[in-house]
């Protein structure tokens, strides 16, 4: 009996492990920023060099930081989702235009619509390093106290919005500042 059951058992264990492995996304690296204060920065506005943007301006609000670039291919897939997100839910989305050219970034928004309340221009990607950015696009959810509560790596789909981001945002909006 054992002679037949043992290999079968081993096979089942192997299948379970491999199927877990297949469903894990190796690009999804847990962010050490979750639960910590959002890294501070002060960057010029993409559209207006003289205006500075920093996370402290959004204290008391639930907001999203979306890291994007005109050279980023998956950002094209994500962009309509962000447009819909800002229209339907009036969410405060701040863009971090990462290692881009100013004119290219402005053009991109003119062509595809602008879901962002404002855009910080991170020319050399130094602020990106502080936020642990390694794969554009990335999206962070920040609560009223300026704490990072969630990170999404890769393009956000509408499914992600309805299943992860909006439920979290709604519960964060109920929290006291």
């Amino acid at each position, binding site marked *: 009996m054992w002679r037949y059951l043992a290999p079968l058992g081993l096979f089942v264990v192997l299948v379970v492990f491999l199927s877990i492995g297949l469903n894990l996304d190796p690009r999804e690296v847990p962010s*050490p920023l979750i639960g910590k204060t959002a890294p501070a920065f002060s960057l010029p506005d993409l559209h207006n060099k003289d205006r500075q943007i920093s996370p402290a301006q959004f204290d008391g609000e639930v907001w999203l930081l979306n890291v994007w670039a005109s050279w980023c291919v998956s950002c094209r897939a994500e962009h309509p989702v962000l447009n819909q997100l800002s229209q339907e839910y009036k969410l405060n989305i701040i863009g971090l235009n990462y290692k881009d050219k100013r004119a290219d970034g402005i053009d991109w928004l003119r062509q595809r619509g602008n879901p962002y309340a404002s855009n910080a221009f991170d020319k050399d990607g130094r602020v990106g390093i502080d*936020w*642990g950015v*390694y794969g554009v696009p990335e999206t962070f959810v920040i609560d009223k106290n300026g704490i990072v509560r969630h990170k999404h790596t890769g393009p956000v789909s509408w499914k992600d919005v309805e299943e992860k981001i909006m439920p979290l945002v709604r519960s964060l909006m109920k929290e006291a500042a």
Partner: protein
Amino acid sequence: MKPYTFLLFVVFSFIQSSAVIADIEANEFASAEQEQQYNKLVNELRCLVCQNQNLSGSNSELAQDLRKEVYSMIQTGDTDAEIIEFMVARYGDFVLYNPPFKAITFLLWVGPFAVLILAVLLIVIFIRKNNNISSIELDSSEADKVADLLSRDSSKGNH
């Protein structure tokens, strides 16, 4: 090609590929110690874009930026521990090729040894079982039969 020469070839091709270096920036260091520190760090830190390469082996934009960051931190006199802390605070333990022993990395460190011990145990059990088979007791009629067969066989061999 003999099988073992082929195996050697495979092993050496791996050794070769791990020594590839994409780090081509012409960094100038004030001292040999600083250069050593830099080389040590860019070999220990993982590139998060191409996850099976370290910073020195990767030519991705992020790896270039992080190499630049390591270089400028060394210039301002930061220690290894300070630079590693800076990276871990931003990218997590994943950025280290030599992750610390923690609750979350427990399986990573202990797993291979657990599998090894399990394999040794299974081999021991298997060998013991086989030994039992070879020490089967024969009754007298069986023993006669065996002796008869053996003697017949040896007489044949003498011709």
